């Protein structure tokens, strides 16, 4: 029974690790693509710098918040799993 409880917590930590890794990968690619296009646009037309910066800022904020959500979910899985005490109690018997 204790082994099962241990397995549950190992699964939680593994899920957290994979979750944040996948989120960071996706957000990194998304931010990189956005930044690349913005810099290319500004290099071609420096006058559009203000307009491009504003659009990119909003896009980057949205993408970054996705990664922060994933970080929060991962940390919840490791440190504040809502059912952790109940499941540990269930397997302890």
């Amino acid at each position: 029974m204790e082994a099962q409880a241990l397995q549950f917590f190992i699964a939680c930590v593994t899920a957290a690790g994979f979750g944040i890794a996948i989120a960071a990968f996706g957000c990194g690619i998304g931010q990189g693509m956005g930044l690349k296009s913005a810099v290319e646009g500004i290099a071609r037309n420096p006058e559009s710098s203000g307009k491009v910066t504003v659009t990119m800022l909003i896009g980057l904020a949205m993408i970054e918040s996705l990664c922060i959500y994933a970080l929060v979910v991962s940390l919840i899985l490791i440190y504040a799993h809502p059912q952790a005490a109940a499941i540990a109690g269930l397997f302890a018997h």
Partner: protein
Amino acid sequence: MNRNSEQRQSVNIQQRILTFVTRSNWVLLVSVSLLGLLAASPPFARGIIFGGLIVTINFHLLAKTLKKALNPQQLTSPNVVLVKYYIRFIISGVIIFLLIQQHVVNPIGLFIGLSVVVASITLATMIELKNLFFKEAV
């Protein structure tokens, strides 16, 4: 001439959205925090306040860094931008980690607080869309 006015209008919309988002971030943060303090438990309210503060300050710092970095007249060194980005990232990561690990906040409250910027951006976009459709209908 026509193209110039279209371009100016587009810049105006962008600037208007940014101004709206910057202001509504604080307005939303204060109103949601007050709502949390009045109607929810202290850890939940703390989650909303801390989460909202983290993303709002992050957004303002990101705006400041990007405006300086992408201004063709006065370009900042890429290293400075990178260092600032990582410092911001590490500080917000450590704060969120400590908040959750020490059980200072309720995770759902933190989640709501972290959604302040996304909510204000969505709100700004919806208002602009409404204006666009309304103007076209007239």
